[in-house]
């Protein structure tokens, strides 16, 4: 398992991505899965950076662990911002016309579509969001 703690700020995104991609490369993940995970990581981390600590600032912890025997990758995002479960957010209507198309919720929709499992809990005043992906 590897852990990274960074300020929850958009400018940290590249650093977070590098951390995740390095770990996945060492664990032998395909470019396709690395790309899919990068997308999940961006969507979740940027949401934390944009909203978790508004109007103030805070830190984000990212943990990544790969279990070789089961092939299961787990990436956990932890923040101490306001309690928020992104999984309760109503999915945007993906069949709406361009005029009526709403932008909010697209990121978490992508995460839900890509990841095999997404779990949330709020514990000790921390938002804990975990994305699980099976290695292919």
């Amino acid at each position, binding site marked *: 398992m590897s852990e990274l703690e960074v300020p929850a700020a958009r400018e940290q995104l*590249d650093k977070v991505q590098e951390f995740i991609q390095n770990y996945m490369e060492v664990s032998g993940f395909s470019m396709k899965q690395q790309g899919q995970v990068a997308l999940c990581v961006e*969507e979740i981390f940027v949401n934390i950076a944009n909203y978790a600590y508004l109007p103030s600032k805070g830190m984000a912890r990212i943990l990544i662990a790969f279990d070789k025997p089961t092939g299961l990758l787990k990436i956990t995002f932890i923040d101490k911002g306001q309690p928020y479960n992104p999984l309760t957010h109503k999915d945007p209507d993906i*069949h709406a016309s*361009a005029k009526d198309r709403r932008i909010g919720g*697209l990121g978490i929709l992508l995460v839900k579509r890509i990841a095999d499992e997404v779990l949330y809990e709020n514990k000790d005043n921390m938002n804990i969001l975990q994305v699980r992906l099976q290695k292919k």
Partner: protein
Amino acid sequence: MDITKEQDGSKLALKLSGKLDTLTSPMLEKVIKEELDGIKDLIIDLGKINYVSSAGLRVCLAAQKHMNAVQGTMVIKDAAPEVYEVFELTGFTDIIKFIK
């Protein structure tokens, strides 16, 4: 990300290369907001884009809405399979035209 612009009268082709994510999509957003005056046909060439996130989708939607409002056309060209998949998962392939 780099953006190359090719204009021919009221037709504008934007060729992007690199990643279209939270940090780079403001570059495309700036072009959409400031450089589409008089443009009736917009081509967004994603042939050299290897990654797009919801931030990229947002800007493409803004571009489509603008072109709809001026009764122009817009297409996204040469999206790689992984990139096309992101548009497809979010239903954007229903509202944006994709060509090869």
